[in-house]
């Protein structure tokens, strides 16, 4: 098996610096690096040649964008032919990596890959500036198994605490660490392994967050595709959506964490009247975006009730 790490983070968060140090830590393994960005500072070729690392570059947009996905899959398959022990993918700062697990789950193409987790780098000072202006920020954070708050040397304690609070508000369960200059402690990788193992464990938040809760009743004339698109409209402003629905005779389990929409066919009985529960933290704009989505699909949504 070939292990694969995904490195994400918004433009300027320090991904490339992090990646260089990360590669050093992995020295001794046969590696392929896939870089999806033309940063100002290219990867230090000398360093990589010393380590015997092959670098593939994909530019011109995000590897997860519909117009570059073909290239990403092709380069990844090509890298696999080499049977490396490790592939590290650095996604562009503007990429929405929500689909990474779905892409890697294609057994026919990527059966030889074991996903080791997603590491998201954020800028301690600038996160709050881009958190609202760039929608991909939330998506990158929400799918990450380990979040590293970088550049803490440039921030004071109050700024770092604000950044942590901003992230916690949306993603209360996320594993977070502070660092500067892209340093990474080896024990964080251990935590990452545990986090990926627990991927299927329900991550459920207790009451102390001042939860926002909504209950959405879906009509059974909605299709699975429409349900997915409906959820996509507000999922990034929630941290959990869950429920069983019966649509046109087919049963589905809805189970979304963070920005990941997950609607799966389900074999069991569905008897709860097509209700899905939507949860968000305080200050998250869940109600507004849920209302907008329900408006789009108004002929397919029975009602939206606010929880207490």
């Amino acid at each position, binding site marked *: 098996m070939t292990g694969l790490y995904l490195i994400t983070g918004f433009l300027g968060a320090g991904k490339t610096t992090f990646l260089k140090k990360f590669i050093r830590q992995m020295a001794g393994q046969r590696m392929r690096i896939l870089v999806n960005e033309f940063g100002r500072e290219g990867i230090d070729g000398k360093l990589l040649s010393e380590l015997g690392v092959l670098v593939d570059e994909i530019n011109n947009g995000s590897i997860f964008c519909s117009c570059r996905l073909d290239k990403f899959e092709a380069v990844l398959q090509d890298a696999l032919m080499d049977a490396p022990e490790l592939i590290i993918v650095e996604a562009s*700062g503007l990429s929405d990596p929500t689909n990474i697990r779905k892409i890697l789950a294609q057994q026919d193409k990527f059966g030889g890959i074991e996903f080791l987790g997603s590491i998201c780098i954020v800028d301690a000072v600038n996160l709050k500036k881009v958190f609202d202006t760039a929608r991909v920020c939330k998506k990158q954070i929400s799918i990450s198994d380990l979040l590293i708050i970088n550049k803490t040397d440039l921030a004071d304690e109050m700024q770092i605490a604000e950044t942590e609070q901003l992230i916690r508000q949306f993603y209360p369960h996320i594993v977070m660490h502070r660092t500067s200059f892209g340093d990474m402690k080896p024990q964080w990788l251990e935590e990452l392994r545990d986090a990926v193992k627990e991927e299927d464990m329900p991550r459920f938040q207790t009451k102390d967050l001042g939860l926002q809760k909504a209950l959405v009743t879906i009509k059974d004339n909605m299709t699975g595709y429409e349900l997915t698109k409906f959820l996509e*409209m507000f999922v990034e402003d929630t941290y959990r959506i869950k429920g069983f629905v019966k649509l046109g005779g087919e049963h589905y389990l809805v189970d979304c964490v963070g920005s990941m929409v997950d609607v799966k066919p389900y074999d069991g009985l569905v008897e709860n009247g097509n209700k899905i529960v939507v949860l968000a933290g305080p200050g998250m704009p869940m109600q507004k975006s849920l209302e907008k989505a329900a408006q789009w699909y108004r002929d397919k949504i029975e009602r939206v009730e606010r929880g207490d």
Partner: protein
Amino acid sequence: MSKPKDLLFATLRHEATNAVPWVPFAGVHAGKLVGYDATEVLTDGEKLYKALMEVNKLYKPNGQPVVFDLQIEAEILGCELVWTKDGPPSVKTHPLEDTTDIPCKCTVPTKEDGRLPMVLDVMRRMKVAVGDTTALYGLICGPFTLASHLRGNDIFMDMFDDEDYVHNLLDYCTEVGKKICEYYIEAGMDIIAVVDPLVSQVSSDHFEEFLSKPFTELFDHIRNLKAFSSFFVCGNATRNIEVMCKTNPDSISVDENVDLVKAKEITDRYNIAIGGNIPLTSVMLHGTQQDNMKYVIDLMDKIENKKNLIIAPGCDMPFDIPVENTIGIAQAVLQPDDVREMIKNYVAVQEDIQVDLPDYDHLEKTLVEVFTLDSLTCAACTYMMGAANVAKEHFGDAIDMVEYKFTKKENIARCVKMGVTNLPCIYINGKLKFSSIIPSKDELQTAIETAIAEINSK
């Protein structure tokens, strides 16, 4: 008989039509049809022209873009580009990265700058060659994407830190866009698509704060110049469809991330045409010809109100899309009822129709078999059949020739039994010799002569 472009114009005028127009966004992919790579078609006018003519011939479009490269303006304004063989170039450096000065209006590109002379020349030539029948699209880089090309990563911070600067930079980028529109329309473009992939990255609040004004100005300007407009985005722009409508374009183009059926309900409320959204990778690049035909039929069947609808790929087509997949799409848009029947039969005939194939190993005369979707309506099939007919005239009784149209059930069964997957194609003595790309007279003659020699040597 009305011309293909008239159907697209009627759609953009929001009139009821009895068919749906189709626009293949073949940018770099055009090169593949004639054996050129992406860099060649984006830098060499002669090669670009030849590639575009092939698109026009094979894909029978109602409208087609002349060039799909969002870096043309950025390159003129000092961004260094990195070139690649299978896609458009990308921006490597950002001239405004370390300054918050707004460029002077005197730096707005002129017709002599960068690759514009080449692009404008090809536009004029295309207008003469196919402008009478085909609507031509000029694609400009949208103001937000151009601003990010010039400014780099910091544009998102600027939206938080320095709103005035962002407004001023977008004003400048809008001026650039207006000028490019003028050049393209003067060179004969019927439709200007303002392509701005980054629009899907911002919230609708930010769109209204920063982008509503620039886009509204651009679409007004295009309208004043008597051309049609298209607001072209990619990515999940679902949340922004409504605010995009409010900028008043004639049409909107979206990709597979958007639910086209629901988006069209919104655009219909504003009486704006919408185009899309055939998936680029899963369907066009990796799907079969049948998958592509089925996708388009299903999409059209899902949309009850066909007014204001354009069928198109979700974005710039990947370089390597199999030619037959696009041919299949064109056929599905052009003859939906026939293709719906074909797809149904393709699944149905596999069990119940018996076909006897010739004994290819013991043929006495060379047999040329042409498999087509329908040589009367599918352009590529017409040319394939035409090439075969010319060969038949040349060889006369020395060869047998037959056409199998996919519109007949027994021919579908024959295709299944033969293992024919891509139409149109030519088999000679039971062997696939030409698929989708039309052979030249010499190529086909040589192949037939070789086959005759093989039979004679037995």
